């Protein structure tokens, strides 16, 4: 008796099934349009001649294509400084965050560490209760004197308890046999972590790093509270100021020699946004799977 192939489409699709499929694809497509539509506006408007905004509004396809807004954005040092600040804080911050996270998550994943529950609770409690904005502000601004210091974008936000528990879950999945044999060969815990555990945990590390990196890249709150020096503004805060504050744009336009009355406010805002989120759009398809898997592990393993 040979292999009998059962065709998956042996049961014919009824008319109702076809309608169902159309509805499904329609809903999915509609939602995708909903998601992409704002980006289309941002992109299109960044290339539109400023004068057209008052008459025609914000376009997806510009009526009079121009790169003037980009000339202003890229002609002024500010966007590059902001990029510098953001890249530095993202890279240095992610490294520091991963250091704090891994060194805490690994011992807490080991049953033999008897004080595990005490330390876990110590960390977990911070997720339940905190001092609040005022005490934190006083600590950072006055006690630690971190105002107008680039480290204020890294130090106070470096450790995420939720992220650490996610990392611990990843470590929980590593079989003990791996480290056991190394112990018998005389390795110490640091060596085991570095040489055995970490290489095996690359997916988890990638996921966590991306979570942190995204947080650093998008942050603006601490900049708003603690930084007045425009040379230290990160990208997102720069965007916020451009939206709120007419002066922010005048500064930018000044270096390109444009008169105050002729600043292409609308297209300038959009062009700056495009320049600011460009890297994310570019990198995103490559890193998306890490976020998806990380969230799944975290949610299902709790």
């Amino acid at each position, binding site marked *: 008796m040979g292999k009998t192939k059962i065709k998956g489409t042996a049961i014919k699709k009824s008319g109702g099934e076809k309608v169902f499929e159309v509805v499904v694809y329609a809903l999915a497509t509609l*939602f995708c349009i909903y998601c992409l539509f704002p980006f289309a506006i*941002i992109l299109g408007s960044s290339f539109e001649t400023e004068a057209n905004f008052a008459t025609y509004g914000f376009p997806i396809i510009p009526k009079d294509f121009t790169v003037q807004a980009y000339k202003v954005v890229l002609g002024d040092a500010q966007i590059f400084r902001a990029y510098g600040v953001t890249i530095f804080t993202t890279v240095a911050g992610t490294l520091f965050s991963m250091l704090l996270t891994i060194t805490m998550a690994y011992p807490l994943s080991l049953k033999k560490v008897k004080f595990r529950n005490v330390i876990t609770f110590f960390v977990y409690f911070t997720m*339940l209760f905190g001092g609040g904005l005022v005490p934190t502000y006083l600590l950072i601004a006055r006690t630690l004197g971190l105002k107008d210091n680039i480290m204020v974008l890294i130090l106070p936000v470096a450790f995420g308890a939720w992220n650490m528990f996610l990392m611990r879950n990843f470590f929980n999945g590593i079989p003990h046999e791996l480290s056991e044999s190394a112990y018998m060969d005389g390795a110490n815990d640091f060596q085991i972590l570095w040489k055995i555990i970490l290489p095996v945990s690359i997916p988890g590390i990638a996921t966590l790093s991306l979570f942190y990196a995204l947080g650093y890249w998008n942050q603006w709150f601490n900049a708003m509270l603690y930084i007045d020096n425009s040379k230290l503004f990160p990208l997102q805060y720069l965007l916020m100021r451009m939206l709120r504050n007419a002066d922010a744009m005048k500064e930018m336009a000044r270096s390109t020699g444009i008169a105050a009355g002729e600043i292409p406010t609308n297209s300038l805002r959009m062009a700056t946004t495009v320049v600011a989120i460009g890297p994310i759009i570019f990198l995103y398809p490559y890193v998306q799977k890490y976020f998806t898997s990380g969230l799944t592990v975290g949610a299902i393993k709790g």
Partner: protein
Amino acid sequence: MKKTKTKAKADKAYKEHLGFVGGLQELWKHKMLYLMTLPTIIWVLIFCYYPMYGVLIAFKDFSYKEGIWGSPWVGLKNFQFLFNYKSVGRIFFNTIFLNVLFIATGTIMSILLALVFVEIKNKVYNKIVQTIAIFPHFVSWTVVAMFMSGIIGGSGIMTRWIMDNGGADPAFYTTPGWWPLILVLLKLWQGAGYGTIVYVAAITGFDQEMYEAARVDGATRLQQITRITLPLLKTTAIMLTIMSVGKIFNGDFGMIYALIGDNASLYSTTDVIDTFVYRALRQLNNLGMSTATSFFQSIVGLVLVFTTNFLAKKVEPDAAIF
């Protein structure tokens, strides 16, 4: 048999009578591991625990010169001040109301989308759709504020569409009534796709044999969804909802401040506890009231978390946090 029993007893005894010396022995035995945790413990002490003692400010008439210790006690006066503040009810209401809207619409939308995504059999289109749907989550609220100016601003797309079709100037940025709707639509834009991840993972984990059996029995895809998928998702959905309810007293500062900022004309429907706490610090310079408010928020939050965790345990015993 006897050996394991005695060992188990010995272990238990070791744990129970760890004591001071036993504790030190434990620290020494795994000194490298405990040393590893030290930097993070220090960080947590500085940035999480040290500020906790700052809640004392809520009970004091704080002045920068005197510092926390020097400032005089005023008992509950800051709290009285807070609760007598004319808009305080509105702030609490907005916080809870907006979160309820977000949770309800978010859950429905995420489940609906997850069901849709799972039904897309074409693998390429499926990947594309999910990639696009999740992407808005990665963009900060400042970017959202930017494109909103292009949609509901003076020359915005929505504004012009309304006025071109005979409507009056909707004045989005000065009419508070619009904003619960706007905020919900934006929250969905940003989070509905991201929220599908957990549901899609759950659905794809379901045993396919049930669906096969149903199909053989002649059930349509729609019936399979309503009779099989949805009931199975109920537990996950309830769990996630309960978790969200635990945070219902916390407003989304990032979203609201980025979109509304200091636009006082919109406060009546958008001001939440967190934006109020921020304003009390930065503009009103009333540190006592600001601290009192966040302290109150933390206490309520604590109660909510314990309550919702208790409820969660009843639904799904394994999934609760503690």
